[in-house]
Each structure stands twice: as C-alpha cells, then as structure tokens.
C-alpha cells in the first residue's frame, strides 16, 4: 500500500508514541525502505528520543529516601484521631456557650425584674466584720429595711446594737416616741443607718425571700 510522505511522518509519530498497530507498522516499514528522506527523519526522531531517555535517566534515575511507615500510616490514622479531637473540642465549646448563655439570661432577668430589689443571694444580712465596709456602702445606697419580731427580754438598745444602728434610728423609722417595746411587736430596722463600729456578731437567723424585707427569727 502506497502512502504519502506526510502520512509516513504521521505513522512515525504514532510509532514513536508506541501506539502504531501492526498493519500500519508494516505499511510504514514498506515506505521507509523506498524513501531515504523519511528514513533520515525517522532516524532523527529515534535519536532524539534515545538521547532524551538517556539524559532523563542520568538525571532522575535516583531512589527516594525510604518512607517512614509510621509517618505515612500515622497520618492515615490521624484522620480518626483528629475527628475525635474535633468532636471533643466542639462539645467543650458547646457546654461553655450554654453556660455563658444561661448566666447572661439570668443576669438579664435580674436586671429586668426590679432594679431596686436586691437578689436573694445578695440580701443585706447582718454585716460581718469582714464584709462590713462593703455592706455599709451598699446599704447606704439601697437603704434596705428588715422587719424584726420583738421577743421577750429584748431591749431597744440590744436590738440597736445587734444591727449596728442607733436606737434613735429605730425609733424614727418606726415613728415611735417612747422607748418601750414589747414582744410580738414588729420593728422596722433601717439597715442603711448601720455603722462599722461594732464587732458584735448577730445570732443565727433564717430569711424568707419576700422582696425588699427580711423576717428575722432569732434561733
């Protein structure tokens, strides 16, 4: 079968690419036998590829450093490890966020309710020596009052001393003119009048959480 020089060149390309089928190979061989120019071209292409192969092998025929299996496999397993880490981190962040949201919500509720009221946990109880100054400062602003149930044998001086206020303050807060008190009587104690001068500790007591006032029951 006769082919043109262009077709022969095309077959030479396929031959060099390694994709020439046997029939076309035979056709090409037949053409090359009778065409000196195409033979020269074919030889040039073969020489180019041969030198190219040789050069590449000289430069690149190296061996790698043997891969460390623990590195390669370690990374493979790290996927699971990293997902566990990620999950743990997410859970911790989630819990922290929920706690933060709860605290924020609580604080919003407290502020919205009644700004004048003191939360139960911060009720101005009897100031202790360590908290006296703080309590006094706070009470001076809020001027909270508590109700005191008078017991037998109580005296106005004693009550005043317990709450670190003067008996005149008790009298004026209760609009009293006389200093006589009796049991079952309820006295309003103006805590804002208390002064950090006494070191007397009050008796134990329980509080009932009605807002703004505290019922005092001597234990």
């Amino acid at each position, binding site marked *: 079968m006769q082919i043109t020089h262009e077709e022969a060149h095309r077959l030479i390309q396929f031959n060099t*690419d390694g994709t020439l089928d046997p029939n076309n190979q035979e056709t090409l061989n037949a053409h090359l036998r009778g065409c000196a120019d195409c033979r020269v071209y074919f030889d040039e292409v073969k020489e*180019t590829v041969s030198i*190219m192969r040789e*050069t590449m092998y000289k*430069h690149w025929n190296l061996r790698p450093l043997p891969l460390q299996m623990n590195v390669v496999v370690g990374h493979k397993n790290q996927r699971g490890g990293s997902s566990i880490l990620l999950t743990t981190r997410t859970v911790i962040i989630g819990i922290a966020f929920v706690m933060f949201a709860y605290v924020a919500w609580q604080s919003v509720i407290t502020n919205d309710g009644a700004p004048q009221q003191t939360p139960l946990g911060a009720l101005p109880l009897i100031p202790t020596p360590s908290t006296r100054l703080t309590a006094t400062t706070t009470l001076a602003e809020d001027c909270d009052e508590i109700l005191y149930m008078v017991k037998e044998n109580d005296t106005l001086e004693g009550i005043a001393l317990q709450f670190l206020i003067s008996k005149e303050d008790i009298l004026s807060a209760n609009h009293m003119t006389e200093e006589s008190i009796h049991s079952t009587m309820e006295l309003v104690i103006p805590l804002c009048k208390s002064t950090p001068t006494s070191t007397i500790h009050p008796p134990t007591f329980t509080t009932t959480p009605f807002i703004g006032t505290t019922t005092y029951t001597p234990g």
Partner: protein
Amino acid sequence: MKILNPTSVNYKERMNDVEPSWLVSECIAGNQAAIESLVRQYETGVFRLALSIVGDQTDANEITQETFIAALRSLHSYQEKNSFKAWLYTIALNLSRSHLRKRRIIERLRSTVTALFRIELQKQISPEEAIVQSEKEAAIWNELNKLDERHRTVVVLRYFQELSVSEISEILAVNEGTIHSRLYTARERLRNSLKALHGE
C-alpha cells in the same frame, strides 16, 4: 486472586506479586504489611515522577511522602476499574504541580526583592549540570527544561515513566489525541535543538 497466609515468612515479598486491587482492599482493611508493600512497590516511581517535575531531590522526597499520605487517606475512593498506578501518579502529579506553583511564587517574590535591593546573586552551577557529558545530551537537557510544563509532563510520563498514551490520558484527564499532539510538539523542538547543534 492469590490468597496469602499472613504468617508465612515470605508474606511481604510475595505480596509484591499480587494484583494492586487485592493489595488496595487489604490496605483499606488496615493490613499494615499490605500498606508497607504498596508503599515500597510504588515509592520509587512516585519519587522519580516528582523529581522529574520539580527537579529537586529534597522536594521530591517530600512530595513522595505527601502522595502516599494523601493516597492512603482516600484509598476508599479508588475505583478498581482504573489503573492504580495512574490513580497514584495523578495524586503525585497534582502535588508536584502545586509545589511548582508555590515555588514559582516564592521565586517571583525573591526576584522582586533582589531587584528592589539590587542584590546580585551568583548563579550556582548545579551538580546536575556537571553530570551532562555530551553536547547532544546537554542540548536535549536544556531544551527539555525550556519546555512548558504541559509538554514536559507528557514527555516525562511517556519516555521516563514509560507509561502508555492511554495511561497518560487517564492521568492528565485529556484525550489521547492531545497527548499525541503534545508529544509531537515536544519531540520536534528537541529534534530541532539537535539539528541546530549539527548546523553549528
């Protein structure tokens, strides 16, 4: 499919002969010996491919390691109907190319800095240049390095990695006609460089 007894002494050696698909399924199952066998079987090929693209042994070693890490991670996505070698080389090639891109950016930055501060860096003669013995080889090597990455890659895959045109087509995800065309263009340029040498 060959069934091997993991307790046999020649287990690792014999695994080099088994089909890649069997080896791959063993690797997915977590068989450490199979993983090592797979790595040892292909690490040199992957390294040489990376070396031929990036031209630096240290970088090529790094890319080889990254290739196997990436391949072992995504082994489940390998489909048995395709050639495992082609699949692995695709990963290696992509990593090599991305490495080249990074290096080009760094080199561009460096040349900008050099220009800014008017620093004249002395061009060092690489040991690679000393290897080249004959003029013809030097001419071919220079021309090979001047080829753009698309043409260089097909030449490397065909004549250094000795892959078939269909395998190269699979790796590069371009049709076989394009591969033929690129091979022809690259070859002609190299042939002309040889002719220029004779002409001088």
